[in-house]
């Protein structure tokens, strides 16, 4: 990679909450570090793929919108995820598509009309010095990101990236672009952990009821509101928590733990949401409606492998310059 730090993007406005994220920080749970990484992995990896053959390069996760950048580089960018109006030099541009930008261009993102997380990737990825092997920003841990201290992007920041003069204009086929407008999702769940501490009645209630996303939802976890489910135990010896774990505190209102979750905890858990559905959850706004569906571990493995195959096999469409 060209490590020239004179080329890159200047942050004119950081928007509501914009973070540098790569695939995540792994293998560090032993010292209490969480994994971080993009909440919507589907949108993240498509943004990266539009910018070249890259899947886990550092990109910007934009929550709701408002990000304004000035380009100090000639390169290719792409924005995927939530429906956030994108313009380059005041010209409206498509999401889920790569665009060439040149030195002096102004890239503006409005505010999401559906969904809540967008991803801006750049050819070659942003050049971020990793900490514990990752660029992922975890504000709660004061780790990662541009300044390596967990701070979100701020006005005046300069994010280096290499120059890239190659790159054809590509777009993601419509069949791979989620529709976030319903603000609802069906999440697949692998039962596990203390599932035996939940009676059949409680499990039936959980899987047949609708839950809503509350305002108290962030990168650590989404707190839900709906029919209470009560485990037969109040607390357990603190134990490791995996991505998507559904934790049920004493009030019976489930919390789905996400990328910035604490690594160990002492509340009973019913199981875990399939990683492929974490992005669907993270795109919901407060008030978003949720249902859950139980799947077996075998089905979960199949879904993961099929999704991977579908991503790998899909062909990007070339964009006609004269449309």
């Amino acid at each position, binding site marked *: 990679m060209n490590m020239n730090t004179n080329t890159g993007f200047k942050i004119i406005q950081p928007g509501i909450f914009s973070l540098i994220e790569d695939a995540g920080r*792994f*293998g*560090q*749970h*032993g*010292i*209490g*570090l969480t*994994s971080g990484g993009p909440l919507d992995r589907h949108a993240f990896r498509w943004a990266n793929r539009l910018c070249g053959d890259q899947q886990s390069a550092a990109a910007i996760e934009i929550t709701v919108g408002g990000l304004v950048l000035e380009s100090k580089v000639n390169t290719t960018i792409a924005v995927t995820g939530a429906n956030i109006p994108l313009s380059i030099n005041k010209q409206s541009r498509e999401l889920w598509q790569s665009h060439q930008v040149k030195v002096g261009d102004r890239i503006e993102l409005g505010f999401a009309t559906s969904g809540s997380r967008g991803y801006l990737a750049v050819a070659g990825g942003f050049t971020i010095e990793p*900490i*514990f092997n990752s660029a992922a920003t975890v504000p*709660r*841990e*004061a*780790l990662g990101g541009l300044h*390596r201290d967990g701070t979100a992007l701020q006005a005046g920041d300069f994010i280096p990236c290499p120059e890239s003069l190659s790159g054809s204009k590509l777009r993601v086929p419509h069949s791979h672009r989620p529709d976030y407008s319903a603000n609802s999702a069906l999440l697949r769940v*692998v*039962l*596990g*952990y203390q599932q035996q501490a939940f009676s059949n009645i409680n499990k039936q209630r959980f899987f047949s009821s609708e839950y809503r996303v509350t305002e108290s939802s962030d990168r650590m976890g989404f707190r839900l509101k709906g029919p209470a489910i009560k485990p037969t135990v109040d607390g*357990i*010896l*603190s*134990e*490791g*928590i*995996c*991505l*998507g*774990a559904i934790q049920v505190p004493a009030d019976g209102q489930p919390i789905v733990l996400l990328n910035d979750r*604490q*690594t*160990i*905890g002492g509340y009973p*858990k019913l*199981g*875990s949401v*399939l*990683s492929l559905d974490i992005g669907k959850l993270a795109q919901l706004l407060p008030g978003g409606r949720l249902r859950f569906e139980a799947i077996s*571990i075998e089905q*979960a*493995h199949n879904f*993961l*492998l099929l999704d*991977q195959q579908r991503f790998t096999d899909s062909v990007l469409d070339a964009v006609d310059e004269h449309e």
Partner: protein
Amino acid sequence: MNALQNISIAGENSLIVYFGDARTQIISEDIASEVAATAAKLRDSLGTLLIDLVPSYASLLVIYDPFKTDHHAVRAAIRRALATPIEPDNSQSGALVTLPVYYSTESGPDLQTLADNAGLSIDDVISIHQQSEYRVYAIGFAPGFAYLGELDPRIAAPRLATPRQKVPRGAVAIADRQTAVYPAESPGGWNLIGLCPELMFDPSAEPSMPVQVGDRVRFKAIDRDTYLDMGGLL
């Protein structure tokens, strides 16, 4: 594998191994040694199939790469690890780390209340806290936060009814029969009895923590001047 271990699904790419009798939820040195030994074996046998491990008091979360292996293979590896006898723990495994503490009502705002509730003098509490050698049972909650046990029951105390918004970095704290040093300023509900000048988590240091799971910790009282000389803040 003995009857007191079981393997449960945690998520699509995670299994969790429970040690001891899960219903009684006991904390013991023997169980902690089994957790540590199993973690070490799995690190060797699974290699790059492993994404991460989370050892805790009586469980081990095993996170694997679902594109390289599956839960049947990982379950089999766990069973093999559990089947090999574990050397009886002589309780001397792991490094012994001594952490300096400035105990006082100035640095430990809950010291007086804790002593009063325990029917002890402040000096007794300070002395009892230093008498035990603690084991690092788990690391989590925040980077570098090590759960140390078990605390002498005479100075055990429940968490505060209302957690503090701000606990300073280095705060030495007690909750139930556990003790810990806050690695960074954060909210917290443990009882504060002193301050430790040593950094419990320093991302720029190698290693980034002075202790790891399985190590042993002793606390040693220092006076105010020594605390300040060592870089402690008040």
